[in-house]
């Protein structure tokens, strides 16, 4: 037997588990090999190395106490739960930040349709009173195609019939800014003016414009027809108020006052005493006041007759409501849906990028704090 054969038998040799013939061989080898004799003795000593050592009580008490305090869930489960919580918290943090960034983007973006004052408010109500304040010369009435009965009346008997026309329209649209511009351009091009325009941003950042337009009576029908095409018509209402009688009455009263004035002026020339003079002057003053008042009434009525009022509401639709916008084919609806979804997606990506950029310094600071805390905790554990 040599050392290589002996070594694997060492354990059995110590335990006395060798069969007789092998034992004899092993003993013979041991007699001639001091290295294996020493090896055997060393391993034998190793087996009893700790025989006399005592286990400190502090270890036994210490580990039991630590186990008792280990009230929390098993390490693995706790780690898992903590990880999920951390992931959820991170998600909420990033999503919340993205939404906030998105809100800022919407609020800060200059709206092409909205007046600049409406910039920072989610809900704005801004008047554009006086916008396009230009009274175009009264257009040629013959050019305008007339459709309604009231229109024809106004055209044919313009000198005698005094009709005030009012149109109320409600439209919905998905391309709000574009349609708003189209309406505005059309009104201004036809010689009309925007008397009032209010913009309101409601739920889901959807906009609604309330407009009061003044349109030359001759262009009203043409304008109504073209505006109807801008979006989808939801409601339409037209009224015609005949003020001919009232107009004639006021004209008569004005005439009477004018005649009275002429007479008073003739009397003034003939007045001899101071008392008469004063009485006539007072009469003239009153009459002049009455003439001015009646003339103003007539001019007001003329203006309302010549420029019809159009109350228009333009409501923006969300991407999900595309089917309500105009009459669309299935393909168009799908295309619009995809476009809307892509826009939302790219908006969210942009918002996310903005948020992460803004939050980066804070995230870095947070990471450093967490690292420091973890290091301290680890050291304490030890």
């Amino acid at each position, binding site marked *: 037997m040599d050392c290589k054969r002996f*070594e694997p038998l060492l354990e059995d040799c110590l335990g006395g588990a060798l069969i007789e013939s092998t034992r004899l061989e092993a003993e013979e080898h041991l007699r001639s090999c*001091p*290295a294996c*004799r*020493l*090896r055997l*003795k*060393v*391993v034998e*000593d*190793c*087996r009893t*190395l*700790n025989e*006399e*050592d005592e*286990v*400190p009580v*502090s*270890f*036994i008490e*210490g*580990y*039991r106490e*630590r*186990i*008792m305090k*280990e*009230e929390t869930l*098993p*390490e*693995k489960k706790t780690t898992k739960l903590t990880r999920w919580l951390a992931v959820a918290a991170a998600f909420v943090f990033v999503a919340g930040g993205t939404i906030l960034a998105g809100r800022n983007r919407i609020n800060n973006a200059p709206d092409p349709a909205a007046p600049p004052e409406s910039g920072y408010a989610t809900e704005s109500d801004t008047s554009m009173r006086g916008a396009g304040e230009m009274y175009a010369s009264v257009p040629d009435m013959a050019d305008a195609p007339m459709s309604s009965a009231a229109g024809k009346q106004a055209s044919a008997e313009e000198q005698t019939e005094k009709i005030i026309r009012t149109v109320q329209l409600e439209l919905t649209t998905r391309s709000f800014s574009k349609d708003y511009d189209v309406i505005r351009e059309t009104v201004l091009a036809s010689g009309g003016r925007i008397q009032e325009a209010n913009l309101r941003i409601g739920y889901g950042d959807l906009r609604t414009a309330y407009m009061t337009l003044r349109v030359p009576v001759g262009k009203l029908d043409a304008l109504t027809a073209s505006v109807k095409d801008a979006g989808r018509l939801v409601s339409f209402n037209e009224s015609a108020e005949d003020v001919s009688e009232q107009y004639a009455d006021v004209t008569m009263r004005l005439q009477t006052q004018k005649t009275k004035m002429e007479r008073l002026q003739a009397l003034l020339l003939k007045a001899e005493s101071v008392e008469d003079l004063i009485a006539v002057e007072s009469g003239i003053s009153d009459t002049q006041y009455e003439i001015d008042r009646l003339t103003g009434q007539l001019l007001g009525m003329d203006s309302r007759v010549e420029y019809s009022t159009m109350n228009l509401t333009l409501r923006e639709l969300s991407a999900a409501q595309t089917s309500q916008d105009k009459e669309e084919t299935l393909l168009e609806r799908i295309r619009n849906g995809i476009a809307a979804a892509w826009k939302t997606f790219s908006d969210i990506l942009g918002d996310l990028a903005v948020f992460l950029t803004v939050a980066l310094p804070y995230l870095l600071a947070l990471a450093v704090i967490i690292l420091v805390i973890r290091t301290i905790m680890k050291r304490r554990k*030890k």
Partner: protein
Amino acid sequence: MSSDHQVRVLRFEQLAAPLEKQVYFTCLNMMGNHEDAEDCAQEAMLRAFRRLDSFRGASKFSTWLYAIAVHVCLDELRKRKTTYSLELLRESGWDVPDTAPELYEQMETKERRRKLRDAISLLPPEFRAPQVLVDLQGLSYQEAAQALGLPLGTVKSRVSRARQALMKTLLDNGELFGHEDRLNDERRGN
């Protein structure tokens, strides 16, 4: 303390209490001093308690527990980054004098143990771990391989090398031949 926790503690104590002494000694032989051994043994017991649910009975509980203890010690030793000489592990170029085993035997048991401990502490941790499990804790090579997650052949060769290195340290440091006077005195005493 919740009843669930109490049940866990009781179960762990039933399994681990008979082995606490051996866990401590495994750590003592790995670390070489009582202070570090106590820290590592406590950490090992706590780690085992936390992972009790992951013990599936694929090995003996004692093997599983020693494995945790050895790994706690190895982690700790790695952190310290002590450099160990690999010179001891060279097989060639050394010779055991005929009288060496007898001289070794003649030393006092206490002294022999002290020298052996010192020699073990000089082994690189990767060799120390299998040697401690096999020679000191009496695990089979198979169990040691399982505990350390190493192939059986690797464990066998590492244990063999570690034993050689222990012998070499005892010889090189003159433990057996450097104190002739003392040994002679002892012989006379006997």
